């Protein structure tokens, strides 16, 4: 930290030191609270990653199916089956997410 040369800088330093001094006497939360915070944040991160992965795979799967349908000239029921599959996957993801939320509240 640079040494102040002017009166306004000394006043600034003094005022901010006084503000910072109020925190210096506090103690941080205990280690257990930090471990819990780290676990919660990392769990949420993993859940978000899984969610994104499922979304990506679903979208990729649908695109692939649509491409196959167009390329191989499958009948219309293939398209209906594809829609049903997408609906089932979305329901499974929603069900899994709800289960995760329930578990985190217990």
């Amino acid at each position: 930290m640079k040494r102040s040369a002017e009166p306004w800088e000394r006043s600034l330093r003094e005022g901010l030191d006084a503000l910072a001094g109020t925190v210096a006497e506090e103690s941080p939360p205990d280690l257990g609270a930090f471990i819990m915070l780290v676990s919660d944040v990392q769990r949420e991160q993993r859940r978000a990653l899984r969610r994104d992965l499922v979304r990506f795979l679903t979208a990729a799967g649908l695109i692939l199916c649509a491409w196959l349908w167009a390329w191989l000239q499958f009948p219309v029921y293939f398209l209906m089956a594809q829609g049903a599959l997408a609906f089932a996957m979305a329901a499974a993801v929603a069900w899994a997410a709800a289960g995760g939320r329930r578990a985190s509240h217990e």
Partner: protein
Amino acid sequence: MGDLDLIRRAQRGDPAALAALLQQHYLPVKKYLVTIAFDRGLAEDLTQETMIRAIQRIGQFQGRSRFSTWLMTIATRQYLDWLRREKRERQAAARVADVQPLWQAPPSPEVQSLMAALQALPREGALPVVLKHYYGYTYEEIAEWMEIPVGTVKSRVFNGVRTLRRELGQDEA
């Protein structure tokens, strides 16, 4: 245990190491945020957000700067996000009154009037003054943290300092 060892373990996925690392740096981050936000309640909230962001991004810490500097960068961005998100310039100005009870021993009238003038500056104008003249960071570092051009930082510091000098009757212009 040193920061480096804890960082390595934290990056390998050891939650206890990361928790210990954050606990060590909790008060310095909070202290820093109090000096830039002038508000203990806000500093407390932003410290929490900074810790959460650090947990999410610990894998991206490459050791180019000290861990404490990395945390301060995150804290500064959290504060700037808060400013932008909430657009609380007016409310922040109303927080001046909150600062007085923070001091255990009231500072001299000169310091009090300077602090009032500092808090009356637009928040994004006060921040570079504090970073430059209290923490001693370079214009380039401040520009990088605030994601604004160096020229803008210089101009904000110049204008801020001129206001503070005027407040203390030291304006030579």
